[in-house]
């Protein structure tokens, strides 16, 4: 039996021929400089992940113009940026919903009801893990251990942890998202 090989993260076509490069404000440029100053001058590439987070925050996800910018800023090839971006689960190479609900699925959370939390999100939002709502407001994912086992079950939205979850708490959090009162880590 043969199996069709498909890469996990196929590159968008425009990634190969970037026509434009992202431009950032002087404040963001200064922030990027601060990150670069942590590493030896000839080792700028070390800042690749911190800079990817900045691009994501500014542009919603790591888009081709953002990738072109990083390659230029760090003095590496565009393919080097994609190589790294596709390895790390927190780097989004495709757009995600405005609020990305990431429910921990690993053992401690699982035995304390993570499945119930995910199911509740699915019912409430009408999307399964890996999907985004039609209005682009919510994405749902099941993620691996986030180091919150003592306060399980839990999920992460943006950079914030929501712990000791119950379906009622999830309802409340989703309402707060709808009211724009939850930080999503993106500008």
């Amino acid at each position, binding site marked *: 039996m043969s199996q069709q090989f498909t890469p996990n993260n196929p590159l968008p076509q425009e990634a190969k021929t970037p026509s434009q490069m992202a431009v950032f404000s002087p404040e963001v440029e200064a922030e990027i400089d601060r990150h670069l100053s*942590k590493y*030896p001058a000839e*080792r700028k*590439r*070390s*800042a*690749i*992940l*911190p800079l*990817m*987070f900045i691009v994501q925050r500014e542009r919603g996800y790591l888009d081709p113009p953002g990738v072109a910018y990083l390659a230029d800023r*760090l003095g590496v090839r565009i393919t080097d940026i994609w*190589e*790294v971006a596709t*390895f*790390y*689960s*927190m*780097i989004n190479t495709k757009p995600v919903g405005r609020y990305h609900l990431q429910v921990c*699925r*690993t*053992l*401690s959370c*699982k*035995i*304390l*009801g993570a*499945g119930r939390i995910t199911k509740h999100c699915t019912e409430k939002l009408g999307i399964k893990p890996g999907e985004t709502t039609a209005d682009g407001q919510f994405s749902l994912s099941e*993620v*691996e*251990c*986030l*180091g*919150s*086992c*003592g*306060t*399980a079950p839990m999920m*992460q939205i943006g*950079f*914030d*942890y929501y712990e000791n979850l119950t379906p009622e708490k999830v309802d409340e959090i989703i309402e707060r998202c709808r009211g724009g009162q939850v930080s999503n*880590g993106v500008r």
Partner: protein
Amino acid sequence: MFIGAIGCEPLQLARVNLENSRSLEVYRQHGGYEALKKVLDGMSPDDVINEVKKSVLRGRGGAGFPTGMKWSFVPKDSPKPKYVVCNADESEPGTFKDRYLMERDPHMLIEGMLIAAYALGSRAAYCYTRGEYRYLIEIMDQAIEEARSAGFVGEKIMGSDFSCEVYTHSGAGAYICGEETALLNSLEGLRGHPRMKPPFPAVAGLYGCPTVVNNVETLTAVPDIIKMGGEAYQKLGTEKSGGTKVWSVSGHVNRPGVYELPMGYDDMEKFIMEDCGGITDGKKLKAVIPGGSSVYIMPAADILGRDVKMDYEGLVAAGSMVGSGGFIVMDETVDIFESTKNLIEFYKHESCGWCTPCREGTDWLVKIFKRIARGEGRPDDAQLILDLCDNIEGKSFCPLGDAAAWPIQSAIKKFPEDFRRHLMPLVQPETTTV
């Protein structure tokens, strides 16, 4: 959630419950930066390494390698810069102690990193923190700036000739980056693939320079070792497992939390059934994974009435390992087939793809576990799974492969009934909480 010490005076958790515990002011009121002062006032780098050797401190990230020995492998005559890297990529399922150490007492970590840097002749120390712990990176950045303005970080620390910078660095979601050489690749801006050893990081680590990578809990033990002396620290624990250990406890216990215990704490049954408040809803204990998900699972029968001592030797004798010290406690409702399936899915997701046994092996294991879960289990599947594990264990490029195989092998060995039930398609498995 409980945070505190049982059976000893708190060392690493001494300040965590104080108001404003993360501020420099509170840290200094409670002995903060006195160890660094003692070091700069009259200890040579070798003196520091010797105290750490005498303390019998062993790496708390999982491998348990003696810290003083690790430090002594760094060549003194190397003309290259040397680096200290703190491994705060805490991602082992069931482990969350480093998170609270950094959240509540960031200066303790900074002081530990500085003392390590002094001992190794390093002028730069990086704290590689998992990307999901963004709020901890912000706490650390704030603490570093506070320490800098008080003269503890930067040029000529406390008026001495010792200068050292401390930097934070963010990961971006990859369990494998907790492996020290994968962490170094990630810190260099590459994919987090592990490197071939040797050379070990002590000789060729970050940017090819001599580097020591230590876990958060390991480094935060250092200030107390210097203050009380290595020997006194060792005596808090046992001969081969010095000092105290911080354990994370989660799952079906009434009082989950972060517990500091003396090494050799007696015993595991008392710890779970009394200190952690026993099993929730009055249920029976079924199993414990005591060292983060990568260690052998222990059935209740190997714990209750067995007087299991909580240190490196005690847990090995009882059939498991200290690992990262992450207790996952499971009650009688948990189906060990299901819990093992949950973990192998974790390892499949986190396998970095570099070597074939781990990449392909974990993928096939997940396929087989999923087929069994669909009710298509075959009587010889347990043997098939064990054969697959045998082809991963000891044959993968880095320990992630072993970490994937061990929980499965021990689960089949210790809970054959839970597997057998699924391998007989005619018998419906009981409903469980997993």
